[in-house]
């Protein structure tokens, strides 16, 4: 079976042209989407749903930087082991705690603007880690795995912040 990069005719590397990804995703969906098979046999409908589902999964994986890095490592046979390996360098853990504290303060003060700033900070940090992972993936895959785990941490905190904002705005 083709891997996700091959499916969208992209080079198998972290830095990709997202415009090409978008274009090729749309081209592919235009051919295989279930809407094209409404009058087809049950067998073709099923294959269409499977293929479109796979294309959606592949697209989301490559579009999202953390997922893309994780997938590249997986193709190289390296598990990022995010569920079990939660060991982090001390400085990263400190930054984590600061974010969580800032989040609690904002919750208490019902300050959405502060949460937006927090999101900006984390996005900034994530961008740096993404640049780092792009270099590490070929050179030092084991270190790349740690960077992916860090990115996953940031994604998780961002998710929680977004949820908190939704709660405060309700």
């Amino acid at each position: 079976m083709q891997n996700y990069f091959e499916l969208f005719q992209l080079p198998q590397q972290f830095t990709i042209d997202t415009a090409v990804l978008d274009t090729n995703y749309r081209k592919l969906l235009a051919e295989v989407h279930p809407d094209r098979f409404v009058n087809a046999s049950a067998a073709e409908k099923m294959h269409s749903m499977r293929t479109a589902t796979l294309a959606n999964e592949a697209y989301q994986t490559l579009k999202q930087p953390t997922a893309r890095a994780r997938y590249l490592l997986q193709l190289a046979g390296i598990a990022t082991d995010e569920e079990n390996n939660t060991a982090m360098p001390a400085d990263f853990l400190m930054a984590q705690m600061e974010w969580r504290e800032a989040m609690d303060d904002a919750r208490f003060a019902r300050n959405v603007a502060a949460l937006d700033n927090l999101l900006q900070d984390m996005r900034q940090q994530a961008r740096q880690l993404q640049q780092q992972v792009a270099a590490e993936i070929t050179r030092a895959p084991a270190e790349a795995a740690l960077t992916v785990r860090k990115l996953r941490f940031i994604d998780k905190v961002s998710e929680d912040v977004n949820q908190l904002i939704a709660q405060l705005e309700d």
Partner: protein
Amino acid sequence: MALLQISEPGMSPAPHQHKLAVGIDLGTTNSLVATVRSGMSTVLHDEHGHALLPSVVRYLSDTVVVGHEAQAAQSQDPVNTIVSVKRFMGRALHDITDRAHIPYHFVENDSSQGILELKTRAGLKSPVEISAEILKTLKLRAEKALGGELTGAVVTVPAYFDDAQRQATKDAARLAGLNVLRLLNEPTAAAVAYGLDNAAEGVYVIYDLGGGTFDVSILRLSKGVFEVLATNGDSALGGDDFDHRIYCWLLDQVRSKTADFKPLNEEDTRLLLTKSRQAKEWLTDNHEANILGKLNNGAFIDETLTVNQFVQLTEHLVSKTLTPTRKAMRDAGLSVEDIHGVVLVGGATRMPHIRHAVQAFFKQEPLTNLDPDKVVALGAAIQANVLAGNRSDDELLLLDVTPLSLGLETMGGLVEKVIPRNSTLPIARAQDFTTYKDGQTAMAIHVVQGERELVSDCRSLARFELRGIPPMAAGAARIRVTFQVDADGLLSVSAREQTSGVEANITVKPSYGLNEDQITAMLKDSFGAAESDKQARMLREAIVDAQRLAEAIQAALAEDGDKLLTATERETIQTHLDALLALCQGTDSQAVKQGTEALNHATEAFAAKRMDASVQKALTGKNLDSLEL
């Protein structure tokens, strides 16, 4: 005068012939049917020239009346005249919190787990059956206007409808004898109509406030691709709630001015609700509304409601629409500067204070150049036309999303999310679980939908049990639960124990849905009493299905048969095809069904090859001829 051609009964028409396909907007207050004629999407009218069919169904002792006539009788016969039935679709009795103000006799159906029914003089009626009456009326209208039987229909649903509500809508359409080509989200349908009409490109917001539901969808429009970036809403918020605010105000006024005010009966409740709706509509173009009337309990109504009072009474409802709007913008990762246009949909967006609120939020004047009542049906008709295969250029592609997260109950009543909201459809995700105790052989799986962390705060969609897990130590079993959401936004769930292969498959028939047997039974009932009628109808349906498949296979063979099949493979398929066509000349519906099944099975490998070829073609732009296969 040109002569119309009619093919021999039972013969399939030529594949290039224009198929009769319609889009149906099954609304809370009004419903419509539209079709594409000579390249133009048009709403179909009834014999009196009405485009809107009031979504009102009145049960008489031996007949059913739908539309204007039923609406006219609602005050005199409130219990048997059902309005806004859409609010009850896929709902249990305990979901309807304002029952006291609705003049119906609600009953809980004990055989189908809490599904609500209404007691009428024609017996107990489920919301699915009542909606089917509206759909039947529209189907008849369309067949009369178009002069033939419909190939299929696209039926719209609020984007924020959950799985139970979608399933109920599809059941109603099937009960009405419609071939459902697709369930389409209302805001997406509106975007299609608006986007194609105005050659719009960029990011658009569809703000859709209907009679009973609110949706907001954010779409990116680009070269015929309509990609939903995020959707949100409230499936129990609409124009009806604005009426209800006036109703409560009116009741307070009358009560305070009448000595010895007696409780309202059903006729009075309905009368006050009708007066309230009229006042709301009047206030769209006027500064104040006079409300006059006499109640059965002897009280007189003579009240004046000003626009300012109305705005005050309903302010919180307007802001209730802005919360989902903000959430959708966040989920899409956009700010108001990114928005090219805001399209207003739904009759309730005629209210000036809604327009002002939307304008203030998005810092731009909303677009209102399409009739907010018709735009959904018009868009659905365009999609139906494409799906039926009438458009040769397939430029149009709709990429929609699931509005609510789907998850499973885990220990402690917590939800483990499996598919997040705003995932592009179709989508599948798997989640692995393990056993809690040594020797555990069964596992209860509880599927829920919603954004909250606790199971009790989410909607329960289905419960099923995976049995026959081989006894193992706690934590050793690997149970993989797979969620698949199809292009209609409907969920199916399967579970499989990985080490032993024990499997359980269910299409999520939500706790409040009908099962396949119930649908079949209802369909049979509606065929008429005579056994011979039922047989004839069943045969006809089997033949229609068989012919649909035969046509699809013939088209596929003509297109790819030479390229993808060996002579022997082709011959096998042809044999099954010929056999099925022969069976269609007979009278054995069971045999036709089996023949259909056999042909489907025989074309499995061919279908897979065609799909692979499509993938290749999509990206290389090469025709099959130039590919090495």
